[in-house]
């Protein structure tokens, strides 16, 4: 209750003249363009934003506690998607767990089992990678750039691994054709997208509750605030780091599965291509601020979808990238941070 109020207070910016001008410009632009924008693109952008949010929250949490940009985050998403593919097409059928077309959804109930399992597998894998690589580097006291470069290596290795095991061909989960929901204003919503939104909302609320209500969640925020003070307070920072990876990578894997459902296909490059929207959302919200990443994700999701009305959809990452650059130049600490 109180925590909610505190968050709300932090999200309300001080009204300096610069910010008022910025707000007026943004509102005018949005209001002016709105009549020309297809409603369906905005709706689609919100669903895309929900997936970006799951990845971006994990990315920003890892940055907060470990202080480095995890370039392999997109490939944790890919891993999640493919682990679920293995479960759905390889493992489950041997136990007779099969089926697609659950109600209005294209996929069947096995996906509901595969989703948490894939998240758990990737979370465990992320902890193992930390022990094998990042922890050794931290103990040597290397700087953040070295850690980020190590994660670039992990990203490339993971993508290679996916290609070796599952080939580079386009694949998809077992699915059955389903009608989309037709709403006024020519909005078409695939039922799968509603499922994606529900999963995202549940997980975001869950992460919020963990961060504000549980001892481990508070310890994660404390460690992100001040690692040395956390140590001398007796906080077991190694355990904090393990939980941090588990939550961050688990959310990424979930985002990967949802992305595979959303795009109705899996490709080894899918997560890597998602990295720019993820970083754009994180930077927009202020690096290390999970609430900011949530807002940033929806801004990026909607903007890049809406941009496809005027420019070729293959330039979507370029839109996210442009927003990121403008943000870094104008407000490097994010929309909720202090300027400069």
């Amino acid at each position, binding site marked *: 209750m*109180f*925590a909610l*109020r*505190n968050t709300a207070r*932090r999200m309300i910016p001080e009204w300096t003249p610069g910010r008022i001008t910025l707000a007026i410009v943004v509102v005018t632009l949005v209001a002016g363009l709105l009549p020309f924008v297809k409603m369906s693109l905005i709706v689609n952008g919100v669903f895309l934003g929900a997936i970006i949010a799951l990845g971006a929250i994990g990315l920003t949490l890892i940055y907060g506690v470990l202080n480095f940009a995890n370039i392999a985050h997109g490939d944790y998403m890919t891993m999640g998607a493919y682990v679920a593919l293995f479960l759905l097409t390889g493992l489950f059928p041997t136990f007779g767990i099969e089926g697609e077309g659950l109600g209005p959804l294209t996929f069947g109930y096995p996906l509901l089992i595969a989703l948490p399992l894939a998240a758990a597998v990737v979370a465990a894998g992320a902890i193992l990678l930390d022990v094998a690589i990042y922890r050794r580097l931290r103990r040597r006291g290397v700087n953040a750039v070295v850690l980020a470069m190590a994660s670039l290596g992990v990203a490339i290795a993971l993508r290679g691994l996916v290609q070796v095991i599952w080939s580079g061909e386009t694949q998809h989960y077992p699915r059955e054709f389903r009608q989309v929901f037709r709403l006024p204003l020519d909005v078409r919503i695939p039922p799968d997208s509603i499922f994606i939104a529900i999963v995202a909302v549940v997980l975001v609320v869950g992460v919020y509750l963990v961060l504000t209500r549980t*001892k481990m969640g*508070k*310890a994660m*925020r*404390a460690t*992100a*605030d*001040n690692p*040395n*003070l*956390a*140590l*001398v*307070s*007796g*906080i*077991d*920072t190694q355990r904090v780091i393990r939980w941090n990876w588990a939550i961050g990578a688990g959310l990424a894997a979930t985002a990967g599965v949802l992305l595979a459902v959303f795009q109705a296909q899996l490709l080894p490059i899918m997560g890597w291509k998602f990295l720019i929207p993820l970083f754009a959302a994180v930077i927009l919200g202020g690096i290390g601020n999970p609430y900011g990443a949530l807002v940033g994700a929806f801004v990026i999701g909607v903007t890049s979808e809406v941009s496809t009305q005027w420019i070729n959809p293959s330039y979507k990452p370029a839109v996210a990238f442009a927003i990121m650059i403008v943000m870094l130049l104008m407000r490097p600490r994010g929309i909720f941070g202090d300027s400069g």
Partner: protein
Amino acid sequence: MALLEASRVVAGYGGTEILHGVSVTVDNGEIVTVIGPNGCGKSTLMKAIVGLVKVRTGSVTFRDEDISSQPPERIVRRGLCYVPQSANVFPSLSIRENLEMGAFIRDDDYEGRIAEMFELFPDLAVRPNRKAGSLSGGQRQMLAVARALMLDPVLLLLDEPSAGLSPTMMSMVLERIVDINATGVAFLLVEQNAREALRMSHRGYVLSAGENRLNDAGQALLDNPEVARLYLGG
């Protein structure tokens, strides 16, 4: 046997050696103050004792156990808590959450202890859900001390508790230290405001360039003309 015995401690950062063999002892229930010019190694001594800086040679014994190679979270469990000079609260956490983090290793119910801290520092009790980052310097210092007291420590290390505070705030913080000491908690302080700190200390040490220079009773150091000339500003 002393409560804390740091003996011929050598420590530093990277290639730089800051402490060239410093020895300090604190007995049960004592207030001990370390004074000395800037850069003499006072803060490094604190960090070496709590395990944030590696002790290269020499030893640190606390409650008859060698703690010189132990990580900070283990040392804290023995009842030795530490308040750094700056960045000594978690700014994005509320006052109450800061106190909860101070009690992180406690598995029992520590609500009573939080209530005691609010009694000791009534300023903090006014709005316990306020973010620590929005507190004034004095309130922040009180929160930092309260956080460290959450574990019922036997010995509390304070690095410059009065740094950056107004004179009224400073004497208030120092008064609190005397109050807490009366409940049996021993203190090892590092202080710029040497005169005020020595007045309330049982004993004091003067460090200079990473070495022990003098040690004596608090009042005796205050009366020492050499100390007065060099470190107390006349």
